[in-house]
């Protein structure tokens, strides 16, 4: 069974450009989460989808970040325009809905974003 897939694995863009990250969750997982790790710091929660609905977007840093999950399957995270401080590793995770252990999250390998 395929795990959580993220691509690209690496992206280097110039300040001011737009980048779109994609996450394909494990089939059947209605929960989808985005996290980010800025170098040397903790992995921080960005947002949580249940199917196509945003359940919690309290961690989104500002309105340059737009997350979507059309049809409740894969999700995209767009950064427009990118700033230097957006550099970091973006992780996606997915899980079933319900009480724990249903919500045990499985993580992708991450996308390393570098803004220069």
């Amino acid at each position: 069974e395929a795990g959580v897939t993220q691509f690209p694995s690496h992206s280097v863009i110039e300040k001011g450009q737009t980048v779109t990250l994609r996450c394909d969750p494990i089939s059947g997982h209605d929960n989808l989460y985005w996290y980010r790790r800025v170098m040397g710091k903790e992995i921080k929660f960005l947002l949580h989808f249940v199917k196509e609905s945003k359940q919690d977007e309290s961690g989104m840093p500002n309105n340059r970040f737009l997350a979507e999950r059309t049809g409740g399957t894969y999700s995209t995270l767009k950064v427009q325009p990118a700033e230097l401080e957006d550099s970091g590793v973006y992780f996606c995770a997915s899980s079933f809905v319900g009480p724990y252990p249903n919500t045990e999250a499985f993580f992708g390998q991450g996308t390393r974003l570098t803004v220069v």
Partner: protein
Amino acid sequence: AQSVTQLDSQVPVFEEAPVELRCNYSSSVSVYLFWYVQYPNQGLQLLLKYLSGSTLVESINGFEAEFNKSQTSFHLRKPSVHISDTAEYFCAVSKISGNTGKLIFGQGTTLQVKP
């Protein structure tokens, strides 16, 4: 709100030596506790978790962690490390009531096992 503090950013240790990676948390509500591991060029993997019951939990590769409620700690230990244990380790919590799967992570500890 919850927060997690991992007291050591890097822990160098020789092969076959014991190791302890420290984790303290703060929360006004009851939480589940986790240790995740990220091996080089791989994603995050769940290493072990404390949900309830016995405060000592073990992983399949010899790590163990003990939940200490009075000290709000969940330190990770291994009596004898291998080169293959070299990785970054993350402590995390998730609130129990109304659990949505959202995780609050610490800053991570890099375990460097030397031959």
